[in-house]
């Protein structure tokens, strides 16, 4: 999910009909520039070198989303596939949640996330956590800062809690559902779900969790 603009120029994107590294190449109608979908970067044309701002979003199942955002809307087109249900992730070791910026990239493998349910980590020197919900197979990257507090999370029978206050956190939204911080929200960060193999191709120097080395 990208902001469809560069500077003050609004852009309208279409499918270029090209693939690069087996991944979608987009074009913008306004300048004809070619953009890598996975990098969000202009690769060829007038806007070459420009990058699109990512809009944080989540991949989850309809049950989870519709419960959390009952007042929202949903795009309704004819189905072009039936493949994408939670069991799409039945081989979790093939998928990662990844984040990249400038020269850095980091990814967390779904099989490891499913085991841990939460991973406390750092990203660009800032404290972050990946929260995982097994049922909906949702992985999401959040900041661990809430106000001036830095939290450390742990998984367990009763869900994800922070060690500092004992509050319980909902992994798909980052909302505290019980405890002293109830009602607070973790700030979601841009992360994308990708095939591990594709991530490695676009980000060969990416740090990985667990380490591939």
């Amino acid at each position, binding site marked *: 999910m*990208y902001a469809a603009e560069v500077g003050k120029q609004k852009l309208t994107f279409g499918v270029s009909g090209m693939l690069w590294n087996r991944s979608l190449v987009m074009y913008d109608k306004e300048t004809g520039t070619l953009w890598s979908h996975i990098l969000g970067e202009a690769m060829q044309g007038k806007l*070459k070198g420009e990058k699109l701002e990512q809009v944080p979003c989540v991949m989850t199942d309809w049950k989870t989303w519709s419960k959390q955002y009952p007042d929202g809307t*949903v795009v309704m087109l004819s189905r072009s596939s039936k493949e994408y249900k939670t069991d799409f992730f039945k081989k979790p070791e093939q998928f990662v949640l990844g984040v990249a*910026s400038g020269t850095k990239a980091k990814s967390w493998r779904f099989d490891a996330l499913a085991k841990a349910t939460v991973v406390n980590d750092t990203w660009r020197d800032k404290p972050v956590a990946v929260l995982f919900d097994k049922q909906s197979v949702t992985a999401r990257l959040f900041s661990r800062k809430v106000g001036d507090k830095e939290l450390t999370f742990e998984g367990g029978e009763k869900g994800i809690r922070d060690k500092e206050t004992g509050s319980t956190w909902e992994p798909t939204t980052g909302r505290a559902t019980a405890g002293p911080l109830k009602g607070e929200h973790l700030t979601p960060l841009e992360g994308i779900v990708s095939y591990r193999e594709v991530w490695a191709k676009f980000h060969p120097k990416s740090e990985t969790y667990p380490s591939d080395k």
Partner: protein
Amino acid sequence: MRRHRLKPAIAFPLAFALLAGGDRPATAQPKAEEFRPQKLLEPLPPITEFPVKAVKDVGEALNPSELVIGVTVGKESRAYPVNMLTGPRREILNDTLGGKSVAATW
């Protein structure tokens, strides 16, 4: 509303950069000079119009276990069912959410 029928034979092995679609390049990576895309189709016109429903009105039209990409901008939340975004004739929806122009990509 666009209702292109898909040609599964040319379905993109999409990089499945779901969510946010992309992200920033980690250098060392694909520099422009290595950008050698492969042309498979003629360019397709951008999709700017598509039907949207209230979550409350969806009823049985979506299966509970179907994957969606969910986004909130300001006070507006919208879900994009992946089973409706995939395929070379879709892939990108140009949308406006919470006053912001966005490209929902799969």
